[in-house]
C-alpha cells in the first residue's frame, strides 16, 4: 500500500514512517505542511493519505482543509485524518466529503493517541484504504450521550452496533465483538436504518449515512 504522510512534528512523522514500513507499507512521501501534502498527493497518487489536522503555516485546521480539498478533486482518495483531540465538527465535515456518490472512498478520523495502539492503528488504516469508514470511539462515545434525536430511539444493543459500524467494522467483525450471529447483526442494522429513516439504497451508502446521522446529532 502506498501512503503519503503529512505531519509537522518531525519526531512523530519519522515514527509514523517507520511504523508503517514495518507493517509492509510504502511511504511514498512524508511532508510537514498542507501545501506540500497537496503537491505530494498530486505527484504520487497514493492509495491512502494520513494527515494531521493542525499544520503550518497557520496551525489551525490546514491539514483537514487540505484533505477536504483533495477529496473534492478526487473523491476516490482514501484519507485518514489524525487529530490531537476529538471535534465532532471536523469528523462530520470529513465524513460528509465521503457521503456523496454512493459512498466514495474510505475516510477516517482518529485521535492521535490511537497511533500508540500500533496494531489497531494499522488495521484502521487498512480499512480506510479499503474504502471503509473509521470514526474514533471517543467521538462515538460523546455522541451517544446526545438527547432529543432519533438515536435515542435505538435500543442499547442497536447503539452498540452503530458505534462499531462507525469504527468501520464489517458485520462479521461486529458479530465477533458482541458475541452474536451475523444474522442478528444484520437484523440490528436493519432496525437502525428504519429508525433513522434512511431511504433504501446501496447498503454501504446507508451505513455511512447512519454514521453521519450519528455525527450530526
Amino acid at each position, binding site marked *: 500500500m502506498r501512503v503519503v504522510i503529512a505531519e509537522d512534528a518531525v519526531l512523530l512523522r519519522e515514527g509514523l514512517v517507520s511504523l508503517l514500513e514495518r507493517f509492509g507499507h510504502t511511504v511514498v512521501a512524508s511532508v510537514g505542511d498542507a501545501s506540500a501534502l497537496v503537491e505530494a498527493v498530486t505527484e504520487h497518487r497514493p492509495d491512502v493519505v494520513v494527515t494531521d489536522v493542525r499544520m503550518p503555516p497557520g496551525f489551525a485546521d490546514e491539514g483537514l*482543509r487540505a484533505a477536504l480539498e483533495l477529496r473534492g478533486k478526487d473523491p476516490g482518495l482514501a484519507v485518514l485524518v489524525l487529530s490531537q483531540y476529538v*471535534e465532532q465538527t471536523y469528523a462530520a465535515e470529513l465524513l460528509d466529503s465521503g457521503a456523496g456518490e454512493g459512498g466514495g472512498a474510505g475516510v477516517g478520523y482518529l485521535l492521535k493517541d490511537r497511533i500508540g495502539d500500533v496494531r489497531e492503528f494499522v488495521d484502521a488504516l487498512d480499512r480506510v484504504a479499503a474504502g471503509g469508514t473509521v470514526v474514533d470511539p471517543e467521538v462515538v462515545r460523546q455522541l451517544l450521550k446526545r438527547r432529543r434525536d432519533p438515536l435515542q430511539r435505538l435500543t442499547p444493543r442497536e447503539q452498540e452496533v452503530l458505534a462499531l459500524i462507525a469504527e468501520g467494522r464489517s458485520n462479521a467483525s461486529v458479530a465477533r465483538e458482541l458475541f452474536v450471529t451475523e444474522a442478528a447483526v444484520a437484523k440490528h442494522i436493519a432496525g437502525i436504518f428504519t429508525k433513522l429513516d434512511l431511504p433504501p439504497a446501496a447498503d454501504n451508502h446507508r451505513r455511512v449515512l447512519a454514521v453521519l446521522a450519528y455525527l450530526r446529532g
Partner: protein
Amino acid sequence: MLTRTALEALVQRPLPFLRSAWPWRCLVYLLASAVPGLVVVAAGMGALQVGLAVDAVPLGVVAAIGVLVLAAPLAGRFERGRLRLVDAVPLPDMSDRRRREAVLTVVTVFGLWWIDLVMVGVTVGGPVLLMLSPVVQPESAGGLVWVAVGAGVSLVPVAAYTVTAWAGARGVMVRAMLAPPELNEVLRSRARLVDAFEAERRRIERDLHDGAQQRLVALSMTLGLARLDLADDDPVGRLVERAHGEAKQALAELRELIRGVHPQVLTDRGLGAAVRDLAGRSPVPVGVEIDLGEEFAGGSGGTEGSSGWGPRSPVEGGAERLRGHDSGRSRVRLPAPVENTAYYVITEALANTAKHAQATAATVTARMDRDALVVEVRDDGCGGADPGGGTGLTGLADRVAVVGGRLSLSSPVGGPTLLRVEIPCAW
C-alpha cells in the same frame, strides 16, 4: 448591600426606607435649589433695573450673563457639594471640569432649580397644607377638616418616594454632566487585559500541543512498537505494556487540560461548532440552537447548523456544511472577544448545570438581536442558583461586563433556571 445613592435607597423595603435619612437628604438636596433660584431671580431683577435705568435692556442682559459666568465655578462647587447628599460615590476629577461645570450651570439656571422647587412645592407642600387644615381653614366643618388631615398624613410616604425619586434622577443627571457615566478608558483597558489573557492562553495551548503532546504521542507509539517485539508472558513485556498504558493515560489527561486552556475549534470554526462540541461532552444532554444570521458574514456564509433534529434533514445539513467548506472562514463569525466571552459563559453555565442543578436536560440558544449577541442557557433542574452564594456567577457577570455586556439570571427554587447574556457586537 451598602446603599450609596438615592435611587438605590428607593428599592429598599418600604419601612427601612421611610425610616432612613434618605427622604430627608433628598428634600434638603432639592430645597438647596432655592440658592441658585435666588441668585437667578436677583440677577434677573438687577438686569431689569439696570436695563430700565440706562434705557438699554441688552446691556442689562449682558450684565446678567456676566454675573452668571462669574458664578459658574461657584455653582459647580455648590452642585458637587450637594450631590453628596444623594450620591455617595466620589466624583472623579475630570480634565474638562470647567466646561462641564459651565454646562451644568446653564442647565441649573434655566431648568433644574425651578423644577426642583415646583416638585417640592407639589409633593411636600400639598400634604403639609392638608395637615394644617384645622389651622388654615378654621371655619370649615369639623369632619371634613379631619378627613383632610388624614389624607395629608397618608400622602407623606408618597411624598417621601416622589421626592427621593426626583432627587435620585436629578443626581444621576448631574453626575452624568460632571463625569462620563462609566469610565470608558477603564473599560477599554479591562477589555485589553482580557484580550491579553486570551492571547496568552492560546500561546500556552500551542506550546503544549507542539511540545508535550507530540512527544507523548511519539512515546506511546515507540512503546506500542516495543510491545510488538515482546512475548505476552515476558515480564519486560508486561512492564512495557504498563508504561504504554500510563503514557496513554497521560495523553488523555493532557488533552483535557489543553481543551480547558483554549478550545482550538473555537478559533477555527467559531462559536456554533465549539458549543456543539461542548454540548457533546456535557454529562447532561444539551440541545443547541445557534442562529447567528448573516450580518457578520459579508453576505456569504449560511445559517449556523443546528443540532436539534426536528425538520432539518441530514441532507440539508450536509449542503450547509459543504457550503461552509467552500466559503472557508467566511462563515458567520463574531468578533473574537464576543466569541470568547460567549463561549466562556456557556462553558461555566453548563458546568454549573452539571454540578448543581440535577437537571435532565439543558438547552443553549444563541441568536443576533440587532447588534447584540443574545445567549440563553436553560435547564430543567432544581433552580435556586444564587449570585451571592458563590463566586461563579459573579465571575461570569464580571467577565460579561468587560465586553460591555449584560447578564441576567432567573432561578427560582424548584427550577427551571434561565441564564441570559447579551453582548454588543459593534467592536
